[in-house]
């Protein structure tokens, strides 16, 4: 019985995932994620918690401790707002330029992801929206991780 049900589920899911996935295309007019994250005030509050977390975590503190915190926060709000299709334009350095001076490993990158996940939990963001945001940010690993 279970085998027959799961056979149907798998066929459906595979068909959906192959046919229906937008392959990363983000419509410029799609503001649903921006709105779900509370627009600019929500993103600012999230980045407050995120930066607090980055400074409190001994794995990430070395990368952010000496930075201009207010500037970093502003850049992060602009960057995230921009990549999720919000009405902002990120004007800071591109990800490669801003990270190439640092030795950043995959473990460092994942530590930052974990701190962001905790900040999103604290902000009360539903898991599905957390993952939608992470999906837009995670591919930056190619530019950010400098030590492979």
């Amino acid at each position, binding site marked *: *019985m*279970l*085998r027959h049900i*799961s*056979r149907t*589920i*798998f066929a459906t*899911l*595979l068909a959906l*995932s192959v046919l229906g*996935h*937008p*392959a*990363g295309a983000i419509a410029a007019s799609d503001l649903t994620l921006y709105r779900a994250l509370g627009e600019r005030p929500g993103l600012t509050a999230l980045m407050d918690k995120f930066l607090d977390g980055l400074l409190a975590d001994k794995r990430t503190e070395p990368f952010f401790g000496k930075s201009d915190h207010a500037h970093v926060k502003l850049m992060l709000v602009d960057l995230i707002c921009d990549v999720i299709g919000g009405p902002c334009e990120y004007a800071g350095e591109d990800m490669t330029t801003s990270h190439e001076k640092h030795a950043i*490993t*995959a*473990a460092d*990158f*994942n*530590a930052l*992801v*974990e701190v962001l*996940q905790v900040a999103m939990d604290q902000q009360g963001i539903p*898991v*599905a929206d957390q*993952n*939608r945001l*992470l*999906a*837009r940010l*995670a*591919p930056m*690993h190619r530019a950010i*991780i400098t*030590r*492979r």
Partner: protein
Amino acid sequence: MKPIRYLAVARHLALAGLVACIATPAAAATGKLVLTGGVSSIDGAAGGGLTPWAVIGTNATDGEIGGTAHVTRVSTQDYALTSYGAALGYHNKFEISIARQNFDASPAIALNGIAPFGVKRGENIEMDVLGVKYRIFGEAVLDSLNLIPQVAVGIEHKQVQPNSLKSVLRFLDASTSSTDFYVSATKLLLEHSLLLNGTLRITKANQNGLLGFGAGAQGKDKYTGQPEFSVAYLLHRTLAIGAEYRFKPNNLEILGRRAGLGSALREDDWSDVFVAWAPSKHFSLTGAYVDLGGIVPGITRKRDQTGWYLSAQYAF
């Protein structure tokens, strides 16, 4: 000398390695995101419960080395299986795993009614599995805006010790040792909180190897390709629910038919629905409801084997 001797040696080495790692927690690899190394499959390789995935197990990401140890129990109407083992992940690229399975084959006593096989009461079948997996390309988790999966190839070398069921395997003309080859593709569709895995296994195994490999019937002693699928939905980064479906060969049924036993030796596909929970980076628990279909249904009143699966994994 038992044929499984060298695997036993490898197991002791793996256990010694585990103890060394546990004793030096400073060396613990924790670079991977929680649950992204999968859980331990019954054969030891990282993946779902019944099938390996393309992920490299343990918490070790690029540049790190990590280990896991697992114990798993599956219990159905007529049988039970215990699996324990360990895996080592190297630089998120290479995985080596070892598992010992102990299969409670008590119903096999009924085979003595068919022929004088000399099967002992409460007999167990033991199997050792040595696994090696190599990630060829792709990043299952972080490359979330493309559809390119992480792809790995692997082998599972299996040696079965049938004990007093040796005469039965001889009757089936099934060998006691063989190697499965597989290729796996895994992708996390993070935008949808959905993980998909497909594995193609090239195998001769009867019931995963517990009833030996191949059979003495025309065309039934060859390797065949068997697809395996898993899907998981992330309810939280520490909690996933999902399902698996694993196609299996059916090498033995024809022999049973020729011996006038009908479908007594039929083998079915396996499937399960599961919940995996990782309360910490170092510990995960997986519970599942499995449907293993018929396992020598001729000695279990023809009923399908369904039941519970519980697995604990420690990672360091």
